[in-house]
């Protein structure tokens, strides 16, 4: 059984005021096996965040099935950790408070919480900022905090919405590498939304390419690169470039979203 199954998923947003409906997801079907890392790529506005929100249980879908561990999704839960495109930090909590939030919810004792938080903050390069509030962080730092807040929980399923979008190339490289290591060690199931093709190929076991809105699955690419992966070795693998070129062409075909529903 796949950890995550998305069958014939459709979603239309309804505008309560005009009564208009906007088809966001045309028809999407794919699945993610246990311990698999799947990236979703697609033009801006095609519905990636929408799919992720549905899997997370934040919004309802119009048609189709979404199963997590074989069960229909009903609302959010701690089995699925979410990294938000818009960070969604708690403004009233310090960096430390944000990072330890999930552990507190699980009832992890304070000392342990803080130890785990220290490790993860070190990892994302936020050590020393424990007592700051989110509004005192730069955009990239906020994004890293959002990432740390989920990583520290070690959820079985991770849903990540462009977690590295606002981070500089160097830090990003490092974090991609770190995420790979974490993934290879713990083997969570990962649903990863990105618009960076290199990143998708480097991190994933499979890459789902979506068409423009209303999105359908344009192609699913199996990434057959050996693990453990490191940037240094992976980029030298000729298949890496093959994959990225292939995807680039696949995506280049679709024009960016330019027509409303």
């Amino acid at each position: 059984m796949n950890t995550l199954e998305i069958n014939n998923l459709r979603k239309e947003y309804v505008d309560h005021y005009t009564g208009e409906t906007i088809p966001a997801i045309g028809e999407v079907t794919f699945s993610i096996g246990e311990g698999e890392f799947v990236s979703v790529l697609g033009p801006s506005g095609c519905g990636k965040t929408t799919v992720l929100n549905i899997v997370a249980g934040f919004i309802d879908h119009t048609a189709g099935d979404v199963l997590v561990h074989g069960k229909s999704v009903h609302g959010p839960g701690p089995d699925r950790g979410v990294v938000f495109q818009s960070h969604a930090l708690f403004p009233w909590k310090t960096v430390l408070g944000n990072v330890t939030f999930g552990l507190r919810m699980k009832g992890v004792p304070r000392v342990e919480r803080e130890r785990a938080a220290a490790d993860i903050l070190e990892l994302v390069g936020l050590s020393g900022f424990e007592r700051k509030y989110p509004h005192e962080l730069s955009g990239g730092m906020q994004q890293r905090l959002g990432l740390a807040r989920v990583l520290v929980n070690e959820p079985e399923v991770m849903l990540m919405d462009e977690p590295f979008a606002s981070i500089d190339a160097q830090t990003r490289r490092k974090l991609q590498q770190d995420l790979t290591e974490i993934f290879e060690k713990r083997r969570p199931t990962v649903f990863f939304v990105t618009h960076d093709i290199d990143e998708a190929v480097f991190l994933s076991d499979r890459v789902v390419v979506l068409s423009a809105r209303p999105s359908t699955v344009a192609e699913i690419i199996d990434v057959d690169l050996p693990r453990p992966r490191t940037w240094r070795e992976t980029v030298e693998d000729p298949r890496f470039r093959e994959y990225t070129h292939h995807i680039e062409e696949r995506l280049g075909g679709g024009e960016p979203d330019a027509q409303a529903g």
Partner: protein
Amino acid sequence: MTTMTPPAPTRAPARVPLLRRLGTVLLAHPIVRTLGPFVPFLLIWWAVAATGSVNAAFFAGPGEVWQSFTELVRKGMMPSYLGDSLERLAYGVGFGLLIGLPLGFVVALSSWARRLTWPLLLFFQAIADIAWLPILIVWFGFSLTSVTFVIVYTVVFPLMLGIVAGVDQVPRELVNAARSLGAGRLRVFFEVIVPGSLPAVASGVRTGLGYGWRALIAAEIIVGTSGIGFMMFDARRAGEVSQVFLGMIVLGVLWYALDALILAPFERATVERWGLVRQMEAAR
């Protein structure tokens, strides 16, 4: 606020059983939605009155209240009292908004005005409007002016405090964006500060009007010679408890209408449409 209407269902209706769907449609009907909640209260009221467990000299049931309503309407007193109350309210609220809105924004936006008036604002808002009445009566007599003053007093403070809080919550970034897009101070005010603070301003208006309504009643009780508040006071003096109850119902209904017909649609069309306030997703 709009916020109080349930969001239109986004879920595919196809998955809901027919009966439940019918129920949902029925429950979603505006009349059912509006009047439904009052049904249990009416029943309890009626039951309490019917059992006679409360001394009837001090408690009137729905039947008696309805009777007094028809009687007062027939005698023409209800329309005339209502007219008087509404006229006073219109004056009070009109002046209250006229004074409170600009003053609120001035205090919110000018650091000088804020410094000079904030403590005074807090000080005076605690002093009950009705505490002013003894002095007002000496100044203005038993007149419309006294009543208007009391309502204005009541409307202005929550409005101003609401505006200040609302303006403080407008993200600084949006002001910056407008400035760098060429908006001068005045434009920033109308294009950013006003809409950005609108949820809080709307809430201030709502609270202010609601309490202004209360002040009217209080004032009519004290300096009253006509109006719904006077009717209640007079009925109490005369031991006509059903008219006291009637007064409360009339007040509630009128305010409800004002709120539901004017304030709520306004909020729905603005702050909710803009996504500034939203109904929370149901916890699932």
